[in-house]
């Protein structure tokens, strides 16, 4: 199969077959277009890229770093070490090497420092005593750690490596669980609140598939060790992901259709749910929350 330019194709997507040069170019253009179209990064921003060392975060870090360098916008990377033995140490090693090569400042914040325990140490108690899956605890602690540290370091934008696969999964998960109000918080710019305590989270890889980020890494020669979180099989997300990938293989383009369908109703969801939630201040940490105590502080207390 050949690209329109006549060279051997390395990728076949909805837009046709692409050679290496045109594939790399298509991903880069897609990311730049998303940044511009949704105003994800602007002059005057200080950009923090949430990075793990996995394929998506390396691609977003590489592309956003190039963008920021050419637009004279300061950038740094921020990683969370949850303390998952046999998983996170590998991706963090890759990330440190990547940042050293690219001369990107890297900060690391760990669950152990922030909450006194690693996820591995929390895991059993969370599951047995509180029926909380490790992914639930990890999600709350990660979001809180990233926001607090990014804010402390002066970031005005928090970039995440969420891609088209993540977004299609999140949308369907919320539909399947009947959480339509949660879908109002999705989109290229995350969240429903303009509360200044939250650093706005944005997703430049919004229209890039997971397959495209993996191929981009391979063609660019980015070193990534294959790493899958050992807790992934416990998550609802992994079930939805497997089903969507099966559907995508049989009916190419379905993930794209799911995200486009979602985007067509997003303005209605935003207008329906925006401003409906009142924010209080967590009486323990001072972060904005809906109750008297935020989820992270509640979990920290339960699991201490």
């Amino acid at each position, binding site marked *: 199969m050949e690209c329109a330019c006549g060279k051997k194709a390395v990728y076949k997507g909805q837009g046709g077959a692409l050679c290496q040069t045109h594939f790399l170019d298509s991903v880069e253009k897609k990311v730049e277009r998303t940044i511009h179209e949704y105003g994800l990064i602007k002059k005057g921003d200080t950009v923090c890229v949430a990075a793990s060392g996995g394929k998506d975060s390396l691609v977003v870090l590489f592309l956003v770093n190039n963008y920021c360098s050419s637009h004279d916008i300061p950038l740094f990377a921020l990683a969370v070490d949850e303390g998952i033995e046999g998983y996170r140490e590998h991706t963090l090693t890759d990330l440190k090497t990547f940042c050293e090569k690219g001369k990107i400042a890297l900060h690391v914040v760990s669950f152990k420092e922030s909450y006194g325990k690693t996820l591995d140490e929390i895991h059993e108690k969370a599951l047995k005593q509180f029926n909380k899956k490790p992914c639930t605890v990890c999600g709350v602690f990660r979001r809180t750690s990233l926001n607090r540290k990014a804010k402390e370091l002066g970031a005005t934008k928090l970039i995440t490596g969420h891609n088209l696969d993540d977004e299609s999964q999140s949308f369907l998960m919320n539909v399947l669980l009947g959480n339509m109000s949660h879908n109002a918080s999705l989109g290229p710019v995350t969240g429903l609140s303009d509360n200044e305590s939250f650093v706005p989270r944005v997703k430049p890889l919004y229209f890039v598939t997971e397959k495209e980020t993996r191929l981009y890494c391979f063609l660019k020669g980015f070193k990534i060790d*294959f790493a899958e979180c050992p807790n992934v099989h416990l998550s609802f997300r992994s079930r939805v992901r497997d089903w969507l*990938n099966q559907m995508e293989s049989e009916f190419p383009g379905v993930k794209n259709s799911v995200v486009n369908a979602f985007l067509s109703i997003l303005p209605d969801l935003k207008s329906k749910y925006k401003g409906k939630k009142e924010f209080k201040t967590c009486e323990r940490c001072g972060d904005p929350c809906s109750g008297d105590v935020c989820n992270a502080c509640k979990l920290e207390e339960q699991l201490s």
Partner: protein
Amino acid sequence: MKVYLERTGKEVELRATDGRDLLKQLKIPEAEAILVRNNEVVLPDEALRETDDIHILSVVSGG
């Protein structure tokens, strides 16, 4: 042909006419795999040879 699977770290010996046939035998959805031969990407409809060494990169990762 020898097939190395990145996701499991395993190596298997198989016969397949093309990439699509190979993935079907391994029950791996096309959306979850990239096939590589001699450090070059092979698309699912490309023919494979008995003597090929194929690496199957996993698209799925993370948590």
